[in-house]
């Protein structure tokens, strides 16, 4: 059913991504690919995987494939205030996902119980219209399987009782070495992720489009440029000088000069 759930629970599972500390290592994207190659939407097909070609336009050129998570590098600001910001991009599990309502088959759906947006690969006809309806470029078509694929929020991990409780988070979250990714219920104002969004001014991407993305991004903190911004002293103490030492050095130098002159005769 591609109509949105009428009696949806207040639960809105999603991610909070901290753009202040993401180091752009792509580990989230790689671990996403690794887990999902055996998960709900497996396989994550690659084409020309060993091609060194970087040419584009056409299915036969270059290595490419299905990924649910992509890390972009942007520069914001100009001149000496410019800064590099790594920007991981994946499905935002919108509350009003147009990718779901445009689906003609009912393959694309939003779960009533937790808000996760999924594709039922058994009935998807591969028309790609959902990817046209997504403003965030979150869906990727698998031309070998002939179906659309997307981030599942690791639905096969987060409820998986065969995993240790600590591992029941999306693969991207579990692997992030900088702890730039957080998972939780954004529908619960008292959850850790909601508090994090509250305290750091977390924002939605392109809220004006009214898709109501659940995922939030935490903005980079203001840049610390002054010496005092890091918590240290605002300025160094002036260096101490010792007049007696200098006098002694002066005497030593004169002695050395006399020895040098005497020996050079």
């Amino acid at each position, binding site marked *: 059913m591609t109509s949105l759930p009428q009696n949806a629970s207040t639960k809105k599972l999603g991610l909070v991504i901290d753009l202040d500390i993401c180091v752009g290592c792509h580990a989230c994207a790689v671990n996403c690919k690794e887990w999902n190659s055996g998960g709900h939407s497996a396989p994550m097909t690659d084409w020309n995987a060993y091609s060194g070609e970087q040419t584009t336009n056409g299915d036969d050129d270059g290595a490419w494939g299905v990924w649910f998570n992509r890390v972009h590098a942007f*520069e914001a600001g100009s001149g000496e205030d410019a800064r590099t910001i790594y920007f991981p991009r994946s499905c935002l599990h919108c509350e009003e996902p147009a990718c779901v309502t445009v689906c003609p088959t009912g393959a694309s759906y939003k779960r009533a119980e937790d808000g996760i947006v999924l594709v039922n690969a058994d009935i998807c006809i591969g028309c790609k219209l959902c990817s046209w309806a997504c403003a965030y470029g979150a869906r990727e078509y698998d031309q070998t399987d002939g179906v659309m694929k997307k981030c599942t929020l690791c639905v096969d991990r987060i409820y998986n009782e065969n995993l240790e409780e600590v591992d029941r988070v999306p693969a991207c979250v579990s692997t992030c070495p900088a702890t730039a990714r957080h998972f939780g219920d954004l529908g619960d104002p008292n959850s850790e992720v909601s508090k994090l969004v509250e305290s750091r001014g977390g924002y939605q991407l392109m809220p004006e489009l009214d898709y109501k993305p659940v995922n939030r991004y935490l903005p980079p903190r203001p840049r610390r440029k002054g010496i005092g911004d890091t918590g240290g002293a605002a300025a160094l103490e002036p260096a101490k000088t010792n007049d007696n030492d200098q006098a002694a050095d002066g005497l030593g130098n004169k002695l050395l000069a006399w020895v040098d002159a005497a020996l050079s005769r």
Partner: protein
Amino acid sequence: MHPASSVILFTTSSGAGYALLVLLAIFSALGWLPNDRALGLVGLGSALGLITVGLLSSTFHLGHPERAWRALSQWRSSWLSREGVLAVLTYLPAGLFAIGWVVVGDNGGIWALAGLVAAALALATVYCTGMIYASLKTVPAWHNPLTVPGYLAVALASGGLWFTAIAALLGAARVEYAALTIMLVGLAALIKSRYWNAIENLPPKTDIAAATGLSDIGPVRLLDGPTTSETYIMREMGYKVARRHVMKLRRIAIVAGFGLPALALLIVMVRETPDGASLALSLAAAVAGSIGIIAERWLFFAEAKHISTLYFGTESV
């Protein structure tokens, strides 16, 4: 947007077929068309043939064409599903109309009524085709009040051109047909030129700073994309067409799609003699019109920019 040939063929071919069906039904109901079986066979055969070729071609770009029937299920929310349902429903009254005209040899009365029902469903199908595109907020050029009128008017113009050619071919030509078709072609030209004007002057809907939410820091630009070769999004949404090609194709669409057919039919009207020369002019008008409309449809896709390309370096959409 990537201009997929299957979708271009589908929208142009089925658009012409549905409009041809509409005109055959309306002129039968008005009693203007003779109940000549050959005319029914060629006319409705062409209409249903164009529709069927279009629908089949639309399934060619599916990953799973054998599951296409599933697209009939989500008419409550999806314009694509509504289009599919109406496309299938149209066959029923259109089939009855064809049986009446070709088998029974009657295109009036109850059979004409079936034809009018088919015509209404056909127009509704083309409306849904337009709405598939017009409803996408992610493609600002399409999310435009002129998209649906453009689809309807271009379909009616191409249907009119083929209707006039078929009527001339089977000796059922009337000066009114050429006159009406010139008006339909003029309407399509007017709406398309307003559409092109509108997308030309469209203020940017959003930009890279809004897409990333980083505008507080300063101007935003892409340093590195996520991959060395193009992703699915770039291949599907990131189609770029050079400005000079756009202008050339618009000229082809205007001259071949609208200008030449209108001129040819004007000559047919002035000559008033339904001879071989008029037939040749009517056929030439239909062929030129179809070529121009394919160019128009290619541009419709190729010129449209998708919001998700902002993440890949497009500065504003």
